[in-house]
């Protein structure tokens, strides 16, 4: 039964209130559940990693070795001239690990035929951006390798 002027019958009003009440109860329950499920683990990257010069001497020129920077796999290249360059080994396309091809002096990603030159610039294939490069600094007999943005940008947020 409903007054001419009203939008709803009294019964409809109460039914709406009940469902609204249950919906707010649902929201009160859903909030902690969502926070529980969407929790992200903190996994910060170290400020830098160190390598002994002795180990560096063992790397033949025009070849690359892999190392772990926190959770990031990285690649350390020693050029023909003996210069050291370090990059993240994760292809900027879809995160496959790249490999160094000494014959062509390029980094190659086997997943979708992506190519980076020896300075990490993306030159062919799907990769949209260059390989993130590290800065290498020498102190006495140790090399310090670090990502310029590590400690700030790379720290994941909870």
């Amino acid at each position, binding site marked *: 039964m409903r007054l001419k002027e009203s939008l709803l019958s009294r019964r409809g009003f109460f039914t709406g209130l*009940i469902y609204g*009440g249950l919906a707010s109860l649902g929201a009160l329950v859903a909030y902690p559940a969502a926070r529980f499920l969407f929790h992200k683990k903190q996994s*910060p990257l*170290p400020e830098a990693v160190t*390598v002994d010069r002795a*180990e560096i001497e063992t790397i033949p020129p025009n*070849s690359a070795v892999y*190392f772990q920077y926190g959770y990031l796999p990285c690649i350390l290249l020693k050029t023909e001239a003996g210069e050291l360059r370090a990059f993240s080994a994760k292809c900027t396309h879809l995160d496959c690990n790249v490999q160094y091809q000494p014959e062509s002096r390029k980094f190659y990603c086997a997943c979708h035929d992506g190519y980076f030159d020896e300075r990490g610039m993306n030159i062919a294939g799907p990769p949209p951006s260059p390989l993130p490069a590290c800065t290498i600094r020498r102190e006495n007999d140790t090399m*310090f390798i670090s990502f310029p943005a590590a400690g700030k940008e790379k720290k994941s947020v909870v």
Partner: protein
Amino acid sequence: MARLGICTIVLIVVMVTATLVFITGSSTYGQEVPAVKTITVEEVKSEGDQGAAVITAEQVDAARTMTPDRIYGLLSLWALIFLAIVLIRLQVQDDEKLYREGYYSKELE
């Protein structure tokens, strides 16, 4: 009928040929990548980062203590439950009245 037989035979021949081509063809599965050479590095630890430290019993007990936030949460929960129950009881009263009037013996159209 004969057409059906010929089609079946052709289909089987095509399937067998395609299978043989794919099975005997070269595959890249399990192909060796050039041997991975790795070097060991030392991480430079800064004071701020802790990583996955072992969680102590004290921390677990601390997580079990009551905080004002939890009390507010409980109170709001009971307030909403109370509201929902009052509304539902009102609705049930209305339904009883309708039942007595025979409303619920009518089938849903």
